[in-house]
């Protein structure tokens, strides 16, 4: 396992997690076993964010860790069982996910808290966000107008706000509750530069519905929640200036109670991005903890698919 002692935030987070859930030790060992120093360094940054957010969360770090365990054991595992039995996600309609999940505020709070920790602990999540931080953000040109659709926990916006080449930072969500959650998170993380957080439906693309177009749009773990991800990408393209880029992170074979669109593999993810009107300029696939890429493909295990597209 990668020696975590030099990384104070990782040490604090992982130590507490394993005190509360000792049986998760083998999983954590596997997740950090082949993490490069560069990825471990970005995980340290994420862990630092998590610790700051824990200070503003009911239950603190222990609450986040317990919610992470709840996510693994009570939210994901039953869906994994359904997925393995039926080779498809349990739900396929947004209305069902809305009824079962999105309108259940206490459940969603635990779900989101668990996912926050997963950005550190789950191998594929840590690799995907590291790719965003180390490759995508530095690739953006000067004076970039940046938009994230569905900013959720706020981590991506936090790092975008710290990127010197980004001129304006915006975040959209259809849910006022989510917008407020992101606003609170950015405040807790100490973001002081202006971030335009707006309740906005990306499909409302008629002129005048929003006064700005963008050079970069980020959609992380959004498409799997939609019935028609290609339509969503076409809508996103309408908000981009020609030559602008989109960074998409979508999981393949990753069952969850609100995942309704099944992406099979990286090539499928790339096809979706192309169908949305983009040229694919880069793509990566990151296997779940404990799996090699070869085994993840063969066994249809969870992969994080990162696709960068360019609007012609």
């Amino acid at each position, binding site marked *: 396992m990668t020696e975590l002692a030099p990384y104070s935030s990782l040490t604090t987070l992982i130590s507490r997690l394993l005190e509360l859930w000792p049986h998760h030790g083998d999983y954590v060992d596997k997740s950090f076993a082949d993490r490069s120093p560069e990825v471990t360094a970005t995980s340290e940054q994420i862990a630092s964010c998590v610790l700051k957010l824990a200070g503003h969360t009911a239950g603190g770090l222990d609450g986040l860790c317990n919610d992470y365990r709840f996510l693994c054991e009570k939210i994901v*595992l039953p869906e*994994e*069982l359904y997925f*393995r*039995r039926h080779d498809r996600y349990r739900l396929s309609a947004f209305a069902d996910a809305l009824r079962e999940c999105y309108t259940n505020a206490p459940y969603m709070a635990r779900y989101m808290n668990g996912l926050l920790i997963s950005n550190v602990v789950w191998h594929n999540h840590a690799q995907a966000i590291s790719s965003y931080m180390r490759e995508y953000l530095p690739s953006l040109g000067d004076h970039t107008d940046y938009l994230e659709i569905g900013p959720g926990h706020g981590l991506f916006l936090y790092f975008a706000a710290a990127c010197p080449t980004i001129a304006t930072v915006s975040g959209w969500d259809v849910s006022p509750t989510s917008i407020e959650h992101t606003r609170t998170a950015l405040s807790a993380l100490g973001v002081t530069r202006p971030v335009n957080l707006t309740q906005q439906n990306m499909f409302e693309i008629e002129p005048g519905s929003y006064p700005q177009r963008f050079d970069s749009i980020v959609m992380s773990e959004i498409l799997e929640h939609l019935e028609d991800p290609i339509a969503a990408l076409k809508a996103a393209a309408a908000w981009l200036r020609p030559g602008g880029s989109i960074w998409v992170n979508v999981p393949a074979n990753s069952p969850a109670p609100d995942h309704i669109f099944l992406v099979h593999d990286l090539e499928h993810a790339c096809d979706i991005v192309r169908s949305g009107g983009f040229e694919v300029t880069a793509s990566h696939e990151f296997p779940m*903890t*404990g799996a090699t890429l070869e*085994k993840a493909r063969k066994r249809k295990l969870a992969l994080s698919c990162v696709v960068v597209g360019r609007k012609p």
Partner: protein
Amino acid sequence: MRNALKRVDAMTRDEILSRVAEILRDVFDDEMLQPTASTTSEDVAEWDSTNHVRLMVAIESEFGIRFETDEITCPENVGQIVDLIETRLGA
């Protein structure tokens, strides 16, 4: 199908263990694996929570049975998996 289920119903514990061992080798892609009743997830490097679900679903398919969701995570070793199968076959 009826005949196949009848053969499964009539299996001895050793025969069930033998078939579970074969499933383990297949699920974990390890032809050298020689599991016994006392083999646990700690003895098999890739036996994590996701692969455990894959294993249990493969067993369901092989034996024509269906576990309750709570039963999936209960077994602590291969012998307890065989216990579960026996219970389900006898149910």
